[in-house]
């Protein structure tokens, strides 16, 4: 299974800086864990924004945290490998991880208010990255921080350096978080729902800031989002997650125009589209709770294409039929061919 994806994804692209290969993440004692993420394959390539799309609880955030080595207590990578710079991180010590976090890989979190320490000034928190990794003096770290705060669009950075998080607006806090993440010019930037907690008016600015910086520095970026509109504006590649699996992945264009998995179809049909006015079609039912997965395909209970085989066999991730292996468009569905041939659900 993994070899298929490697062939299709690796052939035409630059070498990934970070990749997940068949990663399983589970909670609980070894051997008896409840699987939450199941066999995720993901390549993060320099200069490319990959979007990870799915409902909350689908395992997006855990997948992202696994890339940072920051899985919450009780969760662990139970199978597969997290590779950064071609190095398997399994068995990494705390110190080895620390050397990666900041200069190699950095992260922007969802809620900047909670993600900033309320008791320290914003400047101090940004400068800490310089002090820990570059061993520079407070003065140098301060100068670099102020410069950095300017480049992420924080006005009056000299003064704002000494402000506390609660004195910042939501957008400014997220800019500060971005500054913190960009401080050491990482090769991989992870952004977990970076605009969800922000005002709609600010969301566009923050997205523009992220993409501009990503393009300038040719970073590999992973954008976690549940908002297909945001994804369409920012990403070049999309991976759709459902119940811990990546059910479909490919270029933005392919996945959006010719979805090969019924869940992706459903998500797109549920998205307002000015080009296709009409009633939105929601996906019926609820995703399964982790640890209570149905036999066969996890999406089968909600799927209008489901047949007997879907309830017994979990489909493998395979290249989407009729497109050849070179495009890298893959899906995990027994009925991809049927779905590609079907018109979108009737809109009246």
């Amino acid at each position, binding site marked *: 299974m993994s070899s298929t994806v490697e062939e299709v994804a690796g052939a035409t692209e630059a070498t990934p800086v970070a990749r997940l290969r068949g990663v399983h993440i589970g909670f609980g004692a070894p051997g008896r864990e409840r699987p939450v993420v199941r066999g995720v394959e993901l390549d993060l390539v320099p200069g490319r924004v990959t979007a990870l799309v799915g409902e909350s609880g689908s395992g997006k955030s855990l997948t992202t945290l696994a890339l940072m080595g920051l899985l919450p207590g009780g969760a662990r990578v139970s199978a597969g490998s997290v590779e950064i710079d071609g190095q398997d991180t399994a068995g990494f010590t705390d110190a080895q*991880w620390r050397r990666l976090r900041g200069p190699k890989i950095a992260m922007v979190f969802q809620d900047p208010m*909670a993600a900033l320490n309320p008791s320290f000034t914003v400047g101090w928190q940004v400068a*800490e990255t310089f002090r820990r990794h570059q061993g520079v003096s407070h003065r140098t770290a301060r100068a670099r921080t102020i410069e950095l705060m300017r480049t992420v669009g924080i006005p009056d950075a000299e003064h704002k350096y000494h402000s506390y998080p609660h004195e910042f607006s939501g957008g400014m806090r997220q800019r500060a978080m971005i500054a913190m993440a960009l401080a050491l010019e990482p090769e991989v930037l992870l952004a977990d729902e970076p605009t969800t907690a922000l005002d709609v008016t600010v969301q566009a600015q923050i997205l523009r800031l992220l993409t501009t910086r990503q393009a300038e520095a040719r970073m590999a970026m992973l954008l976690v989002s549940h908002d297909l509109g945001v994804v369409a504006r920012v990403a070049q590649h999309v991976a759709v997650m459902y119940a811990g699996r990546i059910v479909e992945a490919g270029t933005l264009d392919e996945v959006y125009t010719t979805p090969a998995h019924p869940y992706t179809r459903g998500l797109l049909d549920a998205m307002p589209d000015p080009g296709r006015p009409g009633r939105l079609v929601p996906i019926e039912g609820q995703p399964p709770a982790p640890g209570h997965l149905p036999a066969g395909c996890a999406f089968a209970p909600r799927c209008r294409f489901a047949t007997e085989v879907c309830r017994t066999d979990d489909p493998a991730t395979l290249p989407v039929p009729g497109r050849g292996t070179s495009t890298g468009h893959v899906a995990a569905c027994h009925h991809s061919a049927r779905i590609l041939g079907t018109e979108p659900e009737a809109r009246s």
Partner: protein
Amino acid sequence: MGAFVAKRLGQAVIVAWGALTLVFIIVRVVPGDPAKLILGPDASADQLKHVRSDFGLDHPLWRQYLEHLGGVLHGDLGDSWRLGGSALGDTLERFPATLTLSLVALVLTILLGFPLGMLCARRPGKVLDLLVSTGSLVGQAVPSFWLGIVLILLFARELGWLPATADGSLAGVLLPAFTLALPFIGWLARLVRNGALEEGAKDYVRTARAKGVPEGLVQYVHVGRNIAVPVVTVLGLLMGNFIANAVIIEVVFSWPGIGSLMVDAITNRDYAVVEAAVLTMTVSYIALNLLVDVVYFALDPRLTPENA
């Protein structure tokens, strides 16, 4: 900040005045005839009269109260009939000893309680955590006067490591200070543990780790700073408690502080000294509460004079 301090200062002065009045009522009104109290039941009418005029006890109560208030404002709480000198002077002379004892106890509490709490938070529900939580429960139930006696027996008599009473050395203060601190070490550790567990689950901890900050610094700088606010508040109250609880410890260890002076004065019915001692301790207690408020305000950047 200034307005906030002024407001709290005003409240503290009112509370101190209330305490002063309360002490006056207890010492001058409750016992009936203070002169009889001073001289004991066998005093002659002549002696009683003499004492009454000496202490102004023949005046009506309201006048005594006003004179007393005036005296306090001038730092005059009357003379000790036993020691002869000014009661306040005698008391203040022994205040540094009590303060030293309480401060050392406070330092011991912080030095042992804080890291212990952080260690417990690292592995909640494990052996150390259970040990500390049981220890704090028992530690607060064991009477401090007996604990002091046991420590004297163990460290001074049996092992001979530390002196049992004040000899002016640092070692001399260790045993009484430890006795004073012990019940509160486990208590502080519990407080720090709960705070660290609560704060440790917050997002900013993950941010710090994502920056590559070493775990020790994450705990002691990022988490530590956030639990410092409640802990500092509690430390101020603890210091006030130590000054008050020192009374018993000072008696056990014959420590020359205000507490032993006060108990001595009570048994000898030297009420001017009793009043001076109680007032000194109460005022320092109130002052510490004030200090806590101010420090709290200074430590938490989110507080403004309006919402403090």
